[in-house]
């Protein structure tokens, strides 16, 4: 199983109403992006961290590891915004490079940090959703939000197929390994190519068999399924309302400032 997928099934927040989690994550993300406030980003990061690690029971090391992935990317990309090459040195730091300076201003550093934290807080909102909500629950929310049926059905089948094809590729790769199929770069490349072509053929065969199985159960072109129901709780709704109201006020305040 893919780790994130596995974690969400073990999360203590897994049985919380999916619409509540979705609403919380999306509204928080929206306020984060609109306000671009440093304080709000820190607040959102902290709250999402507490919810995912303390309430959801996701190990801190895992959460931190996953947070580091976008952080590395963000730091590298924001460096381009912070550092300038200019004939005039800026106020924060300057390294002479011949007649030019590798330089940064306090304003650009502040802007860079703000961008990093805002992006990280936004990612943490999505992490909150994906660490605590199985994909099938997310899809049921999308359905309730009147997302086109075709899109939701495709996502449902693709999600299932990811795991089926991963299983097949793992078995093929294991079989290739057992016969020295990855002995050197040349054989590895050849083995990988063979695996991809076999995967395509297997995927086609599987989709045919799956379609037959669905037809056998009176499939008429529409994937009708029931979802498990986890009713929303009044206290949770109140907490979400309170927190989002706070973010709303902070957003207005940051824009008026």
């Amino acid at each position: 199983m893919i780790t994130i997928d596995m974690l969400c099934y073990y999360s203590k927040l897994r049985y919380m109403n999916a619409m509540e989690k979705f609403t919380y994550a999306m509204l928080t993300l929206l306020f984060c992006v609109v306000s671009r406030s440093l304080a709000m980003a820190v607040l959102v990061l902290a709250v999402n961290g507490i919810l995912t690690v303390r309430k959801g029971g996701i190990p801190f090391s895992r959460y931190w590891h996953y947070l580091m992935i976008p952080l590395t990317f963000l730091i590298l990309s924001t460096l381009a915004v912070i550092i300038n090459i200019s004939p005039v040195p800026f106020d924060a730091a300057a390294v002479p490079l011949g007649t030019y300076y590798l330089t940064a201003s306090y304003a650009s550093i502040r802007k860079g940090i703000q961008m990093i934290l805002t992006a990280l807080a936004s990612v943490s909102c999505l992490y909150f959703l994906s660490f605590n909500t199985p994909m099938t629950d997310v899809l049921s929310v999308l359905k309730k939000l009147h997302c086109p049926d075709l899109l939701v059905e495709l996502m449902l089948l693709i999600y299932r197929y990811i795991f089926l094809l991963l299983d097949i590729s793992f078995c093929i790769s294991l079989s290739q390994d057992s016969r020295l199929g990855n002995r050197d770069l040349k054989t590895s490349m050849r083995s990988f190519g063979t695996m991809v072509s076999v995967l395509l053929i297997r995927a086609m065969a599987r989709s045919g068999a799956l379609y037959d199985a669905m037809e056998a159960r009176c499939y008429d072109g529409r994937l009708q399924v029931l979802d498990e129901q986890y009713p929303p709780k009044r206290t949770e709704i109140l907490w979400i309302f309170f927190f989002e109201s706070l973010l709303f006020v902070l957003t207005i305040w940051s824009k008026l400032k």
Partner: protein
Amino acid sequence: MSETPILKAENIYYSYDNEKSHSLNGLSLEIFRGRKIAFMGANGSGKSTFFLCCNGINRPSKGTLYYCGEPYDYSRKGLLKLRSKVGIIFQDPDNQLFSASVYQEISFGILNLGVSPEEARQEVEQVIDKLEITPFRHKPTHALSGGQKKQVSIADILVMHPDIIILDEPAAALDPKHTILVNKIVDQLTEEGITVLMSTHDVDYALAWADEIVLLHEGQVLMQGSPLDVFTDKEILTQTNLAQPAVLQLFESLCKKGILDASLPLPRDLHTLEHYIENIQTSHNKEETNPCPQK
């Protein structure tokens, strides 16, 4: 008036390669309501192809299939009606389970029958309870074990309340524990009067379980009869790559050695054979305690 067969195949042919060769080659048989039929035969003898024909997925190029005396109607409406009555459980559950959620997966078939969501929910809960799926109902389907996937795939069909359930090698790739579990579920189905068609290579299980055995060979019915009739015909068994059930082999051997009386009815399971042997022991003990019976 004789009973109408629930399913009848009349000289059916099916080809996967534009009639160059035939997987079903003039197959004819009759199946009666409430029977437990084991389909046996070598790999490629046409068992799975016939099952797909029974469900209307494969349409025979020649010949006719009948459900309750009515020829199959291959219109969209006719197929939906047929498939609501004839359910098939595929050999590989990964070819059947399309959803990542057990609950969604089981609800799919019954919702397609046009049942209201409330009623469907009740039915799904019932079948989850009946097939002991509750402990893993919240797991995603890709995280289930082979046996659990098989349980879900049976629930998929059972929830639709079909008249006929077709099981294509239900115990394939299962460990003994899950094989026993699946066999227990199959027993429950037959107790409920559902007609069960099962393909299997397990001769011991077929002898003990089935009312009737259908031996297929090269797309035709080689023999259809009671398990004892079929499994005592060694020539036919060799032709279909099958061995005689262990219990019959042991019984025959014990009879040849004079330990058991050959006039005893053929045992269908180890329990009966054990009973025969117990009887010898009992009569032997009686002789020992009373060595000179009065004449």
